[in-house]
């Protein structure tokens, strides 16, 4: 494979990422499943990089999951997003950074629609005023939180304690990167590197010493499909799509996967367990599965944060094989302790998946 060609592609898709002063909007799925990731993101930004990140307690869901399950009309979603713009404006910010890829995609879509149909923006302003008496300015800079980490990847490298290198062999780790569909498939210009060869995670992985695997189903959806996971009867669709990806990446023997979308990182983790329990298969050689990280967790490990402080115990696929490769020290017995070090019990062992 020629990397020069890819670099030329990446040059086509440079996006502006604000340097500081961010209005932060959380993700429902991230807060539910991997809450440590958002905490880690804020710690890195605020404590390590000394950036100004503002969160308003009054922000809510963007209703994206409702919108993409077709129970929430477009006008409603647009008005909820407009309300977030209003909170941002009221707080004196112009750069908005959603933590969720569905939100990021929707914000981008909303702004794009408004550009083409100003009458819709006018209508939404009326709705928002009528419902909340709020007004807003559209953000000057809209980027996903993974774009922020991408922007500061070299700063993080300078501060890093750990590289994405196998401590024993000295070789770069083989990493599968997975980009949430709504990050750039709808608007390739809105994603770092575009839709076909996104550079947002690749940039982090390479900056921190790892190698990216380009496997055939790299671009394929994780299979969330909104209603296809939320309704139990449809989950065959969801797991089957992830399985297709696992089968395609298996020959490359990935050391771990990393995703920039809250949904994807959870599904790529849980479906490995499901497939193991349903069919007795894992996609690694030891029966433990392929560890999945969020990009915030990957950054946290690189920064030397403790695996159990950033929340790696909330993954179903064990991360210990990866921690061992990275040469990160951890206490297995501390993994499931409570906030004050108290015993709160441990998860049961799965039937098939080795943990």
């Amino acid at each position: 494979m020629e990397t020069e060609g890819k670099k030329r592609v990446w040059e086509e898709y440079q996006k502006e990422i604000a340097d500081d002063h961010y209005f932060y909007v959380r993700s429902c799925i991230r807060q539910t499943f991997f809450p440590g990731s958002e905490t880690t993101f804020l710690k890195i930004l605020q404590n390590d990089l000394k950036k100004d990140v503002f969160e308003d307690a009054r922000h809510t869901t963007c209703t994206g999951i409702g919108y993409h399950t077709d129970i929430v009309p477009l006008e409603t979603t647009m008005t909820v997003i407009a309300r977030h713009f209003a909170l941002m404006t009221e707080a004196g910010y112009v750069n908005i950074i959603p933590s969720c890829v569905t939100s990021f995609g929707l914000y981008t879509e909303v702004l794009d629609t408004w550009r083409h149909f100003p009458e819709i923006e006018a209508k939404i302003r009326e709705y928002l005023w009528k419902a909340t008496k709020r007004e807003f300015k559209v953000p000057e800079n809209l980027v996903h939180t993974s774009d922020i980490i991408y922007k500061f990847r070299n700063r993080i490298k300078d501060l890093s304690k750990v590289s994405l290198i196998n401590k024993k062999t000295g070789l770069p780790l083989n990493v599968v990167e997975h980009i949430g569909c709504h990050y750039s498939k709808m608007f390739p210009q809105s994603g770092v590197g575009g839709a076909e060869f996104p550079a947002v995670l690749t940039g982090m992985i390479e900056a921190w010493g790892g190698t990216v695997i380009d496997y055939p189903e790299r671009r394929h959806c994780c299979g969330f499909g909104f209603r296809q996971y939320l309704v139990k009867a449809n989950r065959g669709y969801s797991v089957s799509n992830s399985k297709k990806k696992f089968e395609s990446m298996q020959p490359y023997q990935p050391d771990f996967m990393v995703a920039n979308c809250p949904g994807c990182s959870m599904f790529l983790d849980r479906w490995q367990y499901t497939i193991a329990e349903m069919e007795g298969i894992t996609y690694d050689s030891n029966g433990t599965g392929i560890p999945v990280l969020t990009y915030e967790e990957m950054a946290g490990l690189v920064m030397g944060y403790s695996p159990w402080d950033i929340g790696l115990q909330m993954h179903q696929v064990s991360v210990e094989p990866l921690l061992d490769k990275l040469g990160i020290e951890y206490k297995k017995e501390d993994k499931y302790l409570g906030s004050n070090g108290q015993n709160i019990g441990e998860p049961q062992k799965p039937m098939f998946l080795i943990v």
Partner: protein
Amino acid sequence: MKDWGYSILKGRQIDFENNDFSIAEYITKHEPSFRWCIGCGSCTATCSAARLTDFNPRKLKLLIQRGEIKGLADEIAKCMLCGKCQLVCPRGINTRNVIQNIKRALNTCHAL
């Protein structure tokens, strides 16, 4: 193994690498005009069986060539061998002989 009320599905993609081309090869050998099709659909448009059933000779022929032969015996049984497709085919394919060779191939290649 666990049953959680849903199952892992097999993909519907035509999986060219793993498909069975024995029937397509048999037909091509005995009736080379099988290859001449341009997928125009004239056959299906005129097909007597297609008026009454979901039989689609254009699709059937293409799927055989792609090695997709699941349910072929049931499908081909819908053909009434009226021969109208042969009259309309712009490429002059001997469709009657193609159909008969599909049937023979099913007996020869597969005891389906």
